């Protein structure tokens, strides 16, 4: 009986003390926020028929199908010494800077033509206001198409950072010239420049090289 009374008394005290606890003055401050992400989107600028723009040597046919993610083209009826180029621009439409991680390529080629179907690339960076970035101009030598990715990865293109709105223009900037005058008119050809080497023998007739070049971009702060 005594134990029961003690237990009841203890409970009453506990409840009273709780009441006292709630009666203390209180206040609070809060930090409310929204965490929203940006986006990452690198595109080919597409204003057909102005961009991408195709220029070819005599008697060479060209067909282009472009979207913001992919450009598909066909150059046909090439011959030794024949050439064609495609003028295209990659733009960073992201909200963050991006970095070119690497170039990759897949190739399906007739063996006879593979060593003689060559490409050279000329490029420079343009800032968001459209001005060429000084010192960004670069070019590759002519190499077989299968070697294009490795060649690009050996240039300043690999690791190049594009801030939002900046572009890589495949071509030469004002004040520079292309050393590749393939038609002898005194004006060098540029951009992504394809040719069939003049040493190509007769068994390269009616052959072709199909390829896809991948330009892989990552966010600027990724190692």
């Amino acid at each position: 009986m005594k134990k029961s009374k003690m237990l009841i008394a203890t409970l009453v005290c506990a409840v009273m003390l709780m009441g006292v606890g709630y009666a203390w003055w209180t206040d609070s401050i809060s930090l409310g926020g929204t965490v929203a992400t940006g986006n990452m989107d690198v595109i080919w600028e597409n204003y057909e028929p102005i961009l991408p723009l195709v220029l070819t040597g005599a008697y060479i046919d060209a067909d282009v199908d472009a979207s913001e993610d992919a450009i598909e083209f066909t150059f046909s009826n090439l011959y030794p010494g024949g050439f064609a180029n495609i003028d295209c621009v990659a733009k960073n439409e992201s909200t963050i800077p991006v970095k070119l991680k690497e170039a990759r390529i897949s190739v399906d080629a007739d063996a006879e033509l593979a060593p003689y179907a060559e490409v050279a690339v000329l490029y420079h960076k343009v800032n968001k206001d459209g001005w060429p970035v000084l010192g960004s101009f670069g070019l590759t030598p002519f190499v077989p198409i299968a070697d294009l990715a490795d060649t690009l990865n050996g240039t300043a293109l690999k690791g190049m950072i594009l801030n939002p709105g900046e572009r890589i223009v495949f071509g030469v900037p004002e004040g520079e010239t292309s050393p590749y005058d393939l038609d002898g008119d005194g004006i060098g050809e540029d951009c992504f420049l394809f040719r069939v080497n003049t040493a190509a023998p007769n068994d390269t007739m009616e052959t072709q090289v199909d390829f896809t070049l991948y330009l892989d971009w990552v966010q600027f702060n990724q190692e």
Partner: protein
Amino acid sequence: MKKTRLLIATLVCAIMLMGVGYAWWTDTITLGGTVATGHMDVIFSQADLSGFDSIAGASASLSEDKKTITCAFTNLYPGAKGVLNSGIKNNSTIPVKLSNIDVTFTGDVAQLEEHLLVSLSPNSGFVTIEQFVNNVEDYIDYLAIDENVGGQIYFKMNEEAPNDSTEGKSIGLNITFDWQQFNR
């Protein structure tokens, strides 16, 4: 037991870190292309001899690949004449230009070579085959795509051919035209 737990913990951490690695944002743009070549093919479109009389013997044939005309002349006599009706067609996907002509004679070459004459006109301008070949680029040196040039080459045996060296002789010839792409 402790080792097993450590191993599991390590694997979990590794997988979590992999997850972090793949979580970086990425994007890819592609440039796909086909580079295809055309072809070059020039042929003789025909090779028919006509006009030689029944006494003179002459024939012309076109090889199966239409690349070579072979002519044979037998039983000719001074003043015998005929015409080779021929043509050259550019079946290429690009224009072509003439780079070389090669003529080879067979038979009694030494005796008849100087006396077998050719011309692009039936009544004048006859010259030796060698002289003709040297000047042929004045007549044809470029063929556009699909261009088909018909032509007649008149042959005759020189009326001044001497008896002692040209009687009972025969001569044949192969003419080969070498073509090259227009931009070479």
